[in-house]
């Protein structure tokens, strides 16, 4: 009984305030300080990072342009059925003319044309032509006839099906395009014909090259990190400077020097031809292809592998391997069973770092990748700055983001993220 009472009794401080409450009060002050310290960075990240990312996510499904440019058509076409074999009614064509008049005056209607052109080529031309002619059109008897008179395509049911499909506020068409799929006229999906597929194979290539690069950095970086962790501090400090040296030269300069080294008339080919290993008409193609991307990016990302490995190896006392050796393990067994398992944290950290950097890398593949060595980020950049198809760029970017997250979660499941040591 006595213990049961004691359990129910609330522990209080000397002046009778429950202990939990006064502790909370005491800790609140500390929390407030912590929040204030974090606040500036949090705001910065929110404005420059989180909001743009959210905006990008929205943009990949956003289709508000239909509502903006075709406010009346979007309303009228609601009653029209996709399966219908007849053109929409006269009221819809009336709305079309009115929307076009407004849009042509404000010179914004061509945007919608460009948007619809992503789905079906010829739409952009149709919209420009219609916008030009619509001004001269004055209250015709039949809006339908007048529009078909401007362009026959207004009498084509496929045009209307497209407008109907893309009349919603949101659209999945960017994602479909990003997966090399398209909507059929009846609203179902199908893959594009093989010669039009671009992005799936590009995603595969990006993942494959990123894995290759990660693997190469492990193979090349592991021995270096081991050396760094075993030599005297003075020597290792100097060697670390050498490892970091690439960081101090401009990325462009480094990438360009790879071009000088690897190209057909470059240093390496010249040497190989010079010493007779290759004949002059057999020079190796080492750049402007996948090999160029892999070589240059492995070099550039190597420090990101070496440093986490080094920091983990530094914590492994030499006595572990020695203990294993004294117990009868051969050098290889001691390495494989004792040393390597304890560096998994470093391999994981370096691997994730390099992989995530590689999968979104842009400059190097753009310069040395040619057509076969470019990665998904190069296409995202293309759609942002050249084709101006921001929706597709956003969809590709979102897929890339989800891909990285998925691999991160996979890593967590397999290796455990808590095992990761970055320094």
């Amino acid at each position, binding site marked *: 009984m006595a213990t049961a009472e004691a359990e129910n009794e609330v522990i209080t401080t000397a002046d009778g305030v429950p202990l939990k409450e006064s502790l909370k009060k005491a800790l609140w002050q500390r929390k407030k300080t912590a929040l204030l310290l974090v606040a500036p960075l949090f705001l910065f990240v929110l404005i420059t990072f989180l909001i743009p990312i959210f905006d990008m996510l929205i943009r990949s499904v956003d289709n508000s342009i239909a509502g903006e440019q075709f406010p009346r058509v979007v309303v009228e076409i609601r009653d029209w059925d996709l399966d219908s074999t007849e053109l929409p009614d006269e009221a819809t064509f009336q709305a079309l003319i009115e929307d076009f008049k407004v849009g042509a005056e404000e010179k914004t209607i061509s945007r919608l044309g460009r948007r619809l052109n992503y789905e079906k080529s010829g739409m952009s031309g149709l919209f420009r032509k219609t916008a030009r002619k619509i001004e001269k059109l004055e209250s015709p008897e039949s809006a339908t006839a007048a529009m078909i008179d401007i362009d026959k395509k207004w009498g084509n049911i496929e045009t209307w099906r497209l407008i109907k499909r893309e009349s919603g506020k949101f659209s999945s068409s960017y994602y479909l395009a990003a997966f090399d799929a398209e909507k059929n006229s009846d609203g179902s999906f199908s893959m594009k014909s093989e010669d039009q597929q671009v992005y799936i194979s590009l995603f595969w290539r990006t993942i494959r090259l990123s894995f290759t690069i990660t693997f190469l950095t492990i193979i090349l970086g592991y021995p270096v990190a081991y050396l760094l962790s075993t030599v005297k501090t003075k020597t290792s400090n100097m060697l670390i400077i050498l490892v970091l040296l690439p960081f101090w030269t401009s990325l462009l300069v480094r990438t360009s020097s790879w071009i000088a080294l690897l190209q057909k008339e470059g240093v390496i080919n010249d040497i190989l031809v010079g010493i007779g290993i290759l004949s002059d008409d057999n020079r190796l193609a080492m750049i402007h292809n996948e090999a160029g991307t892999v070589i240059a990016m492995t070099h550039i990302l190597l420090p990101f592998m070496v440093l986490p490995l080094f920091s983990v190896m530094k914590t492994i006392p030499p006595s*572990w391997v*020695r*203990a*294993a050796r*004294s*117990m*009868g*393990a051969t050098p290889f067994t001691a390495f494989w*069973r004792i040393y390597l398992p304890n560096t998994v944290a470093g391999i994981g950290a370096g691997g994730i770092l390099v992989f995530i950097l590689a999968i979104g890398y842009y400059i190097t593949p753009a310069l040395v990748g040619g057509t076969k060595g470019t990665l998904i980020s190069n296409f995202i950049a293309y759609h942002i700055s050249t084709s101006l198809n921001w929706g597709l760029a956003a969809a590709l970017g979102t897929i890339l983001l989800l891909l990285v997250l998925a691999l991160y979660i996979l890593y967590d499941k397999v290796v455990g993220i808590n095992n990761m040591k970055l320094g």
Partner: protein
Amino acid sequence: MSDTPSLVRFVDIQKSYDGESLVVKNLNLDVAQGEFLTMLGPSGSGKTTCLMMLAGFEPATHGEIFLKDNPINKVPPHKRGIGMVFQNYALFPHMTVAENLAFPLQVRNMDKSEQKQRVDRALDMVQLGPFGDRRPAQLSGGQQQRVAVARSLVFDPDLVLMDEPLGALDKNLREQMQYEIKHISENLGLTVVYVTHDQSEALTMSNRIAVFDDGIIQQCAPPEVLYEEPENAFCANFIGENNRFLGKVSEDNGDTVKVDVDNDAGTVIAKKVNVGGVGERSTLSLRPERVTVNPEPGSLPNIFNGVAEELIYLGDHIRTRFTVLGHDDFIVKIPNSADHAHLEEGGTANIGWTAEDCRALDPSD
């Protein structure tokens, strides 16, 4: 130790790391079968280097090490069959305790049931039976230490090396582990080479202690010999507490010498141990517990007047600091017996000692 065969022999071993100075200078040492030998010395004295050469992690620059009469300089560590306990235990953090213990058996391709049997036996030996499934990080320092000891023994090595294995433990635990390791080694009849810089640890555990300084074995003897009969000033000073006087030999009487303490403070009659002839300098060494306070006049050859500077009550004895013969750091341990001398700080007393207890040694520094 000549009646038992030596298991390990160091012959003319020299070791240099930088090619400029020798860390180990001409080491000759035999370790007998079943012996517990401790290498004792300050840091940088070369004791750990010797251990590493024996284990095979450092090559000897010159000389040869024999294990069971086979030269082992060219034998890699994993073929030497030597168990080793490291300073910070060197337990493998990614394996459980049982896996740690099984490791040396696995690399020997022992069959599973035999492995399990041996691991269980080793765990029982160090009273860690129920801890087999834990990770080393989940054990206390003392428990990790026991695992390290068990792991070094589980494959029945000919020889076990221990490199300051108790350095990371607190005092009580360290003492307890000293006894535990000593008992295990006695029960199993192990040959142990133990490295430490803690002299009380060396005295507690060893059959024989090799005192290292400056790359040289200063003295290699059983604990009681080392303590009672140090051969040079370094050993006298390094092992146990020690009162020192520096002076010059003024008379050589064969077994004893007369030494004039510096600054004309007085003349002491001492046992001639390690000192040159008349006119040579010498260090006199005297244990604090061998000093008599207020002896009968004439009963001892050395009686001097001293001033008690400081008294520290330690229960079983009273540690008293005197100024004697111009030295103000002369320590006397007065046993807390029924009729012990009662002194006061600042008071004077006669203190004396025999010539036998005062050893005339080499003039160190």
